[in-house]
């Protein structure tokens, strides 16, 4: 059968064609909202109209069968309207109050996790991992599944002092929001790249490979028409591998993940913050990465025990001080924690004020 006529530069469809009528009618005219239960909120318009949102976890990677199941539920209870959130949850947009209970009931029967609204652990923003990426030093989906199984109560029921945003990045490119999350996992290498000199000659542009190195560890190797890596300067970031494939850096024995904490993107109370290193290395241990889930749970427990209401992880750590953070979590403090990258001096304590 002939293909339909292709069109270019049309952009996405207009959003107004996809809004439920109640949202279209009250667009920009909302009065307030309330969180009614861990996975249910209501938005009330100045007109008095209401829309209920039922939030459900997804693994982000979805089969067409599951998307059809969501579509069927939306048809049955929401006039066919649904949306995804910026953390890859699904929200069913309910205009008729009588449909809320049956929708929630059917979601539960089908084993969907309802929750993620309010001061809880919502979905984990994550990346492709071994499922689709060439530079992945761990598998993102597997770690996310292991973590969320362990923390499921905090999605569906239990509260935390404030939101706890988790993220997983499968290499130091950090696609997603690892660098500004409350607790996040980032995969790292610990060995310098192995160079296949014959292939560098044919596949790589030497100047851009040299320029890709954040520490200036790469220099030309004219005799081999290739490059060399200064072992003392290389921090195993893998960016050279991104621009020059024959600089393979993956190493199953030494690759693994680091844990960072204390980042946030919102401006509420305190300015947005970067996440900082708290655990330099945990080995990859598929399929369940038990050491990683245990470490995250450990940091989370310390935060819940120590934080004031509304304090985010980073705000709690700043209030008690990093020296106290390492004390209450009993995590080892190592040379790896002391910055020696470009902004190192910004991180040094230029004062005599600290806690014992």
């Amino acid at each position, binding site marked *: 059968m002939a293909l339909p006529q292709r069109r270019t530069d049309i952009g996405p469809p207009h959003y107004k064609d996809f809004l439920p009528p109640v949202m279209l009618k009250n667009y920009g005219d909302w009065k307030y909202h309330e969180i009614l239960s861990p996975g249910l909120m209501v938005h009330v318009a100045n007109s008095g109209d209401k829309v209920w949102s039922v939030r459900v976890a997804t693994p982000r*990677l979805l089969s067409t069968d599951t998307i059809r199941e969501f579509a069927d539920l939306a048809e049955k209870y929401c006039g066919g309207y649904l949306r995804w959130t910026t953390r890859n949850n699904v929200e069913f947009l309910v205009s008729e109050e009588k449909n809320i209970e049956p929708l929630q009931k059917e979601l539960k029967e089908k084993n969907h996790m309802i929750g993620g609204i309010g001061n809880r652990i919502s979905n984990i923003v994550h990346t492709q991992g071994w499922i689709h990426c060439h530079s992945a030093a761990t598998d993102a989906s597997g770690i996310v599944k292991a973590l969320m199984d362990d923390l499921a109560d905090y*999605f569906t029921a239990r509260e935390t002092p404030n939101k706890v945003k988790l993220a997983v990045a499968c290499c130091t490119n950090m696609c997603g929001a690892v660098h500004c999350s409350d607790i996040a996992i980032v995969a790292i290498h610990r060995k310098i790249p192995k160079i296949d000199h014959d292939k560098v000659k044919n596949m790589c542009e030497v100047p851009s490979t040299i320029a890709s190195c954040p520490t200036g560890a790469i220099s030309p190797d004219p005799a081999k028409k290739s490059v060399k890596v200064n072992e003392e300067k290389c921090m195993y970031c893998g960016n050279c591998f991104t621009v020059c494939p024959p600089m393979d850096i993956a190493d199953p024995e030494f690759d693994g993940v680091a844990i960072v904490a204390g980042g946030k993107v919102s401006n509420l109370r305190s300015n947005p913050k970067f996440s900082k290193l708290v655990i330099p290395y945990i080995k990859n241990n598929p399929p369940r990465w038990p050491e990683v889930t245990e470490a995250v749970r450990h940091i989370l427990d310390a935060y819940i025990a120590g934080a004031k209401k509304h304090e985010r992880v980073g705000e709690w750590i700043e209030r008690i001080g990093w020296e106290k953070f390492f004390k209450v979590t009993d995590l080892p403090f190592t040379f790896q924690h002391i910055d020696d990258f470009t902004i190192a001096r910004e991180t040094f304590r230029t004062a005599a004020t600290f806690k014992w």
Partner: protein
Amino acid sequence: MPKKYETPLLDELEKGPFPSFVTEIKKAAAKNDMAADELGQLEKSYRERRGYWKHGGIVGVRGYGGGVIGRYSSLPEEFPSVANFHTIRINSVSGFFYTSQILKEMCDLWDKYGSGLTNMHGSTGDLILLGTSTENLEPIFAEFSSRGWDLGGSGSALRTPSCCVGPARCEWSNIDTLDINYNLTQEWQDEMHRPAFPYKFKFKTAGCAVDCIASIARADCSIIGTWKGTIAVNQDEVANYAKNGMNIKEEIVDMCPSRCMSYDGTELKIRDEDCVRCMHCIAKMTKALKATGEKGATILIGSKAPFVIGSTLSWVIVPFIKMEPPYDEFKDLIRKMWEFWDEHGKNRERIGELIIRKGMREFLEFIGVEPQPQQIKEPRRDPFFFWTEADLQK
């Protein structure tokens, strides 16, 4: 029937309460060879603790330089159906809204031409069609584009802009995030589809400083809604919050970063001129407090992930700009920024890195924005600064 693999390690990840990506892959694998081989290769990765994907080759659709991420298995003989396993980025709708009918239509097409696996959504906001062969790219594009869907961005181009839910459902939004997002995407289709920049460029639009799209951390240009005016206080609703157990002094007044609030047990007072519009009080007392006055946005530039100079958060360039259609003032400003970047940017240099390398002065002068204290956290510490001939004449 698709090939079957033994997957004892991945099977472990079908247990537990959180929805399983392994179950998703298996659902697709039951009727699709590509998904079956994806599952087989992933099990091998779990066994050997390393990935088996090669660097992407350059693949795409006619007329475009981006939107498709080429991906090839490094084990094509072992897993032939994922020898090509390319990703297609479909530009999602502002705010990620769908109808059931459109989703089903998309699913039927994707089952016909691809692996049946998706990501809803990629981190930038695209709908990701995960895994197809090179020869299916043109048919998929014809099928989707004829139904009103276009590709998103990839490579050294404008990437797919995304935004928070905004005025469609949120009472805090100061700007029409969905419309801004749609308008910018349409305005710059060429910049999205035909990479012509030194490196990638991302827009994200947030209706307020809560920043539910993480624009300040994940967009070269962060558009964050704000207001010039007052926070209107409904004292009756404040009293209701107090009555319902909120400790207004501890939870609101003492947590205000600018210490511009007071509460004597009956009346909540805000010194608006000292408020930094962080949103904490409004977010916690959404029935009682409301931003009023002139609405617009703060434009921040420069956030990115670590490579090469280290992670950055966007910083303020324009403290306040009106954001009303057709957004000409904003677009002119962006075009000037791109001109500066195109002229001076090195290969794979993000705009934020360029500004840091060239200095804020050169950038601000080029785009025609005055220096303002809102652009900095604190003035410089060291006495090493440039004077131009013109400065000396002043």
